[in-house]
């Protein structure tokens, strides 16, 4: 039993736990990913409020914890203690299940997300197909939430929301297909649907698929980037959730913890589709410029990035400490922020140590790229007005779909010719 557990470790880890058939480590990875995604969702909540506020020349949450760092926890506590209101005429079973379906669908996609060549729960050979399929199950949750509320407006909001999600799945799928097509442009002519295989293909072809057959890869990426924003019901495609429209969205009748499950599922879905985009077009866990800037020194330079990132974050924290008012009321906050900055700095220093540095590279670059996408999501929300529903559907069907088809055909032709 014991060597069953340690055998996965000792084989200088080249395959994922799922591939090695090691259930114990697969479970460990699942727990790590579950915890990591939950922390990421909380951080995303904080980042959204702060970044949105800074876009709007205001400060955002500042009171709960230094610079509002504990705000998401306060929100979660508040939502836990709220009364759980279920409409009297609602379908209780379906009402209860709907947020769970969205949550499970969003979280199940993470078992194939590749944080590194051996850092995923498993490497299904239909990886990308699995991710697209399971994330399309979230649509069911939305429809059920609207239905179970047994009220006119949530039902219409749910149907509109799900119609939007289904329409943009098509453009997403076509963009994904053209990226998968590019994986087959190798000596043997066989591509792969597995997520880790796609990144390996980018490594083997020495190019991020974003820049392959320029500008085709870029167009496919842009189509996917737009479709993924529509898929997760975020601005500028968030008409079904907007407050100033008539139909208030499918989660109107949900209160307290159930509502927070919807938000959790939405943020998890955002991170999941961003992971797809990063894996397919941005080279997954590879460091930037894998082929233009090669060599020992460049490898070293890029391997210092994780440490520097955390050091920069801790510098920001200490700058915040210096700028805190010198009033006894703020003493606790100042100490908290200083402690936080110290922890970040410590992590940064640890990440400079060579063994840790090497192991953390893949995870760091993957997470950094996904974090960039998260910031883009918030940026879109701050900048763009909302699309009207018929315009939204028009964009999905009449603009994205033909362009995605075109890109697919041209990519295929170029792939055969070149």
């Amino acid at each position, binding site marked *: 039993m014991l060597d069953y557990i340690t055998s996965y470790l000792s084989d200088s880890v080249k395959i994922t736990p799922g591939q090695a058939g090691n259930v114990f480590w697969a479970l460990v990875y699942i727990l790590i990913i579950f915890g990591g995604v939950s922390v990421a969702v909380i951080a995303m909540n904080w980042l959204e409020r702060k970044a949105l506020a800074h876009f709007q020349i205001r400060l955002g949450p500042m009171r709960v914890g230094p610079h509002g760092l504990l705000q998401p926890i306060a929100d979660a506590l508040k939502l836990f203690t709220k009364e759980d209101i279920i409409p009297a005429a609602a379908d209780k079973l*379906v009402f209860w299940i709907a947020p769970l379906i969205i949550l499970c669908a969003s979280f199940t996609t993470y078992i194939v997300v590749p944080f590194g060549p051996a850092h995923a729960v498993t490497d*299904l050979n239909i990886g990308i197909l699995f991710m*697209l*399929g399971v994330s399309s199950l979230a649509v069911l949750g939305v429809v*059920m939430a609207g*239905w179970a509320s047994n009220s006119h407006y949530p039902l219409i909001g749910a*149907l509109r929301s799900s119609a939007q999600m*289904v329409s943009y799945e098509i453009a997403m799928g076509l963009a994904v297909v053209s990226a998968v097509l590019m994986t087959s442009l190798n000596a043997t002519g066989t591509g792969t649907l597995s997520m880790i295989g796609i990144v390996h293909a980018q490594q083997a072809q020495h190019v991020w698929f974003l820049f392959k057959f320029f500008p085709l890869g870029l167009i496919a990426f842009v189509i996917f980037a737009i479709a993924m924003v529509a898929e997760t019901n975020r601005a500028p495609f968030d008409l079904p959730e907007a407050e100033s429209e008539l139909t208030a969205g499918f989660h109107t009748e949900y209160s307290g913890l159930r509502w927070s499950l919807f938000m959790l599922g939405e943020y998890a879905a955002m991170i999941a589709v961003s992971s797809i985009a990063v894996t397919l077009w941005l080279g997954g866990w590879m460091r930037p410029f894998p082929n233009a800037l090669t060599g020992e020194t460049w490898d070293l330079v890029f391997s210092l990035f994780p440490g520097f990132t955390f050091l920069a974050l801790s510098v920001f924290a200490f700058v915040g400490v210096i700028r805190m008012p010198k009033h006894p009321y703020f003493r606790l906050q100042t100490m908290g922020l200083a402690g936080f900055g110290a922890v970040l700095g410590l992590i940064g220093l640890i990440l400079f140590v060579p063994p840790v540095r090497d192991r953390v590279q893949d995870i760091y670059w993957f997470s950094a790229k996904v974090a960039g996408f998260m910031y883009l999501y918030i940026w879109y929300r701050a900048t763009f007005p909302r699309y009207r529903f018929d315009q939204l559907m028009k964009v999905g069907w009449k603009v994205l779909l033909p362009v995605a088809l075109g890109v697919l055909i041209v990519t295929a032709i170029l792939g055969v010719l070149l």
Partner: protein
Amino acid sequence: MAPVATTFFFYFLSGVTLISALMVITQRNAVHSALALILSLLGQAALYLMLYAPFVAGVQIILYAGGIMVLFLFVIMLVSIERQQKEEQFNKLWLVGLTAAVALGGLFIGVYVKGKSLFSGPLRPLPETSNTQDIAVMLYGNYMFAFEIASLLLLVAIIGAVVMAKKRI
């Protein structure tokens, strides 16, 4: 890759599939029936995975559970069914139903009894890792004509649906 606890999973998944299939026909509420059908389809997808057919499993989840069932739910929710629920169910054709059930049951028993001898020749186990490639080669190679006909059929269906739903062309 060595399969893990195959027997347990087979019985578990078949149980889920069958029980939810039964729930489809016995639930009063149409939406509950649709949800049970979704569960049944997901169980089927898992069974496909056990048969080393990952591509079919993935497509089953995307298309059937995630697409077709969503459409079913749309229709159920948009069309008012209260009227229908108050209508009398026809149980005058119970004799026909019984005959069909007996025939189907007899077919199943026959297949079970005959077992493997139904199929001529040994079954070639195909490697699981190239399942998608093999399907693609077959589909676009040997069965190209059928594939094109099927897609043409779907196109006709889409155009027909759009024509019927539009007020004016």
